[in-house]
């Protein structure tokens, strides 16, 4: 293998593509060539570097220097100063104190360990990091039951929002005898402010495929479907490439590794409805019907896609599985806290210095996540609130900064981890406006199937809109709580059951903001 003095990782994601990363990469290559550095310095295209709002970014190894917001005109200077003369260009480097704090330490990462490190479009790089070892191990030396038991023992819980134990879910489907079973990956990722699944798929698509394979083997499915939102163009093309490569290598197909096990994986593209992230609506949509939820029972595990037993799991859930099989359940359970093992990927947005994503142990406090991984609050801004879990989440105030972020601890505060979206707000944020945009979202995304949600979301929006325009009454606040609690009791699916969480928490924790608009 060739030895390079330095590696430059270029983060290619939707945001950097929009900022012209391809052009900058071409300039970088030609500048290196001009300076006779091509043999010494390697350029790697990789998934996102985990930063947000930093335009085109480069990460230079081994020194771990992050260049951000690069323009075409900056490249010649970086090549000459940094790579030729060994003097980093400080004005373009991400604040050093932040970098040190920031989660560029990949050691505890499980699902994002390769993101921003390997070339996601090259299966050999995935194989080089130990990829598909779990798949080979399972097929050649483990019974399906053993794979299932390992996942069960790991304590892995679903990362799509509800936190249902993955192994338990699989164990309902595994014993069923059926003509056909399916694994369906929920890659719809519609929760506002959430883009963790996108980054996993962009940065390490093979890891997701390997997770699907292991699940399929454990439950006896011969087809996998990835239901992905249509806007995720780069993910789709990378997954398509990854599937092609896996087929070429005989990792997917008939009689894989001579085991007699057949499996293929297909991609289904969604049309951008939030409700289609709900597993039964997702299945309806996959079958080509109107995307509205089905009655449960029967659960998908018994009668799902085309009425066959189907396991639906979130992207992040499945991306954890290869490491569990390779390293064992006990290793996995060393991460996180009791009852909620492993890590969690968060997307942090709002008034923090380093918006972006991080993967940390379950049970890490909100304070640590904000302070350490998001670089703390922006200059001159003080923490007021965090919306945790996306639109279907809860507004927490500063009393709750030390809450441990895991399914059980949050429940004590009637909060949810949800999709792992964290929106941090400072005192300049007004809770009326925040709640208004949340309720507008629900009104827009209700599928219209049931009366409480279809009509209730409209009513809630009208009430908050009235308050926002200064036409509200104090009794409207109680009405909103009453109506959303009623929707919790009677709505068909979790979408209509959700508005009560942001409503109750916003009105209870930040009542002054609402009263200020009413008086």
């Amino acid at each position, binding site marked *: 293998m060739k030895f390079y003095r330095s590696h430059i990782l270029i983060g290619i994601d939707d945001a950097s593509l929009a900022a012209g990363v391809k052009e900058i990469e071409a300039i970088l290559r030609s500048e290196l060539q001009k300076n006779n550095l091509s043999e010494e310095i390697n350029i790697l295209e990789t998934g996102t570097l985990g930063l947000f709002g930093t335009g085109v970014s480069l990460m230079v190894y081994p020194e771990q220097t992050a260049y951000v917001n690069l323009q075409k005109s900056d490249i010649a200077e970086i090549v000459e100063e940094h790579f030729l003369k060994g003097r980093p260009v400080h004005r373009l480097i991400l604040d050093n104190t932040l970098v040190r704090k920031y989660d560029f330490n990949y050691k505890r990462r499980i699902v994002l360990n390769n993101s921003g490190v390997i070339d996601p479009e090259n299966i050999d790089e995935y194989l080089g990091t130990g990829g598909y070892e779990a798949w080979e191990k399972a097929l050649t030396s483990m019974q399906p039951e053993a794979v299932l038991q390992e996942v069960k023992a790991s304590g892995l819980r679903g990362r799509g929002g509800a936190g249902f134990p993955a192994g338990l879910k699989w164990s309902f489907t595994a014993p069923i005898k059926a003509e056909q079973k399916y694994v369906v990956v929920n890659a719809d990722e519609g929760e506002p402010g959430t883009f963790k699944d996108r980054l996993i798929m962009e940065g390490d698509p093979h890891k997701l495929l390997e997770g699907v394979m292991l699940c399929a083997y454990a439950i006896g499915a011969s087809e996998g479907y990835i239901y992905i939102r249509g806007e995720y163009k780069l993910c789709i093309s990378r997954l398509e490439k990854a599937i092609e490569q896996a087929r070429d290598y005989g990792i997917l197909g008939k009689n894989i590794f001579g085991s007699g096990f057949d499996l293929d994986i297909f991609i289904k593209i969604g049309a951008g409805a939030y409700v289609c992230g709900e597993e039964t609506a997702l299945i309806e949509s996959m079958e080509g019907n109107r995307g509205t939820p089905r009655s449960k029972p029967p659960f998908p595990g018994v009668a799902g896609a085309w009425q066959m037993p189907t396991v639906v799991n979130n992207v992040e859930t499945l991306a954890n599985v290869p490491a569990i099989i390779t390293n064992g359940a006990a290793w996995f359970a060393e991460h996180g806290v009791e009852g909620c093992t492993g890590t969690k990927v968060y997307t942090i947005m709002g008034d923090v210095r380093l918006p972006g994503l991080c993967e940390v142990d379950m049970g890490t406090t909100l304070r640590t996540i904000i302070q350490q991984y998001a670089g703390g609050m922006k200059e001159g801004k003080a923490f007021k609130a965090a919306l945790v879990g996306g639109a279907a989440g809860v507004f927490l105030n500063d009393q709750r900064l030390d809450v441990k972020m895991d399914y059980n601890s949050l429940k004590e505060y009637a909060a949810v981890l949800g999709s792992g979206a964290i929106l941090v707000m400072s005192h300049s944020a007004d809770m009326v406006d925040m709640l208004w945009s949340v309720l507008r979202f629900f009104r827009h995304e209700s*599928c*219209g*199937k049931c*009366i409480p949600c*279809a*009509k*209730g979301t*409209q009513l809630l929006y009208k009430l908050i809109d009235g308050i926002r325009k200064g036409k509200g009454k104090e009794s409207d606040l109680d009405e909103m709580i009453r109506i959303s609690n009623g929707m919790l009791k009677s709505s068909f699916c979790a979408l209509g059951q959700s508005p009560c969480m942001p409503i109750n928490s916003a009105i209870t924790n930040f009542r002054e903001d609402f009263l200020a608009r009413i008086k």
Partner: protein
Amino acid sequence: MIVYLNGKAYEASPGETVLQVALRNHLYIPHLCFHEKTGKAAKCRACVVEVEGMPGLKTSCNQPVTEGMKVTTNSKQVLDAQRLVVDLALSSGRHDCLACEQNGNCELQDAAYYLGITKPSFQLYDDNYEIDDSSEFIVVDRSKCISCGRCIVGCNHTVVNEVLNYGNRGYETKIVFDTDLPMGSSTCVQCGECVQLCPVGCIIDKRTIGAGRTWELDKVETVCPYCGVGCKLEVHIDRTQDKIIRITGVEDSPTNNGMLCVKGRYGFDFVNSEERLTSPMIKENGKFREASWEEAIALVASKFTSIKDEFGSDSIVGLASAKVTNEENFAFQKFIRKEVGTNNVDHCARL
């Protein structure tokens, strides 16, 4: 098996739902989307009840009964939830019961009455509603629609005309004909199944608007005169004028299960027509005159006999009608074969 509704024991059979057991025993639970024919959609959410041992509230229309199940239909929690659903449904449509055709025969009204809702708490609908009266026999006032979906299931699965479906999403969800065409320009055949299934006054008969209220009309069950299928129908009659106001199909009748065709449901204006023939007519010197049945039949019989004598049996052909029953058709071919003496007999349906 035995189930307990509000503490009282009721006999139930496996496969039944809580709602079915309740309704069979005249215990009312509000329900808007359930209909025996279109099935359990569980989508209106008006029928929620408490079931002991189960978390939250359950929709009774799709909750199967189990031995010893204990159900509460009248707790505060249940009634509050039902009230919210019905209130929201009322608030989001122009439910002007005073002049509504469905007044007295409206399932939303029944639910509101039961729950003591005197008027909707909010006004959510837009005053700029449009009424689709493009169709010959049916009017659609979408502002009254509660998206129960019964018409859609009926059009697609009982009459299988596949015209109706949902359009849009969320609050804007509405029923659409084909690709959101006016009903009159769509492929609708105006069978009226959707009218029959609509629990509210959204899809209604056009010709009888304002012609009579349901409680003023006598309802008489009879058989449709149009064809041999023999659909069972109910004729709604205004006795004061001796006039048919509307016709509906009889649900759970074995021939038609409530379905009718456009003629059976809407083609009744001949009954009171001035031009209707009420006695046999005989044409003499180019002019018709009234005659008695005896005279007319005797005349026809004598003509047939003379044709048969002069030209032979095979000079006569019998063509039977699809409008009469199988039994009548049977008798007819017997008559042609045995009395006339020819095998020249056929039926209009073989075209």
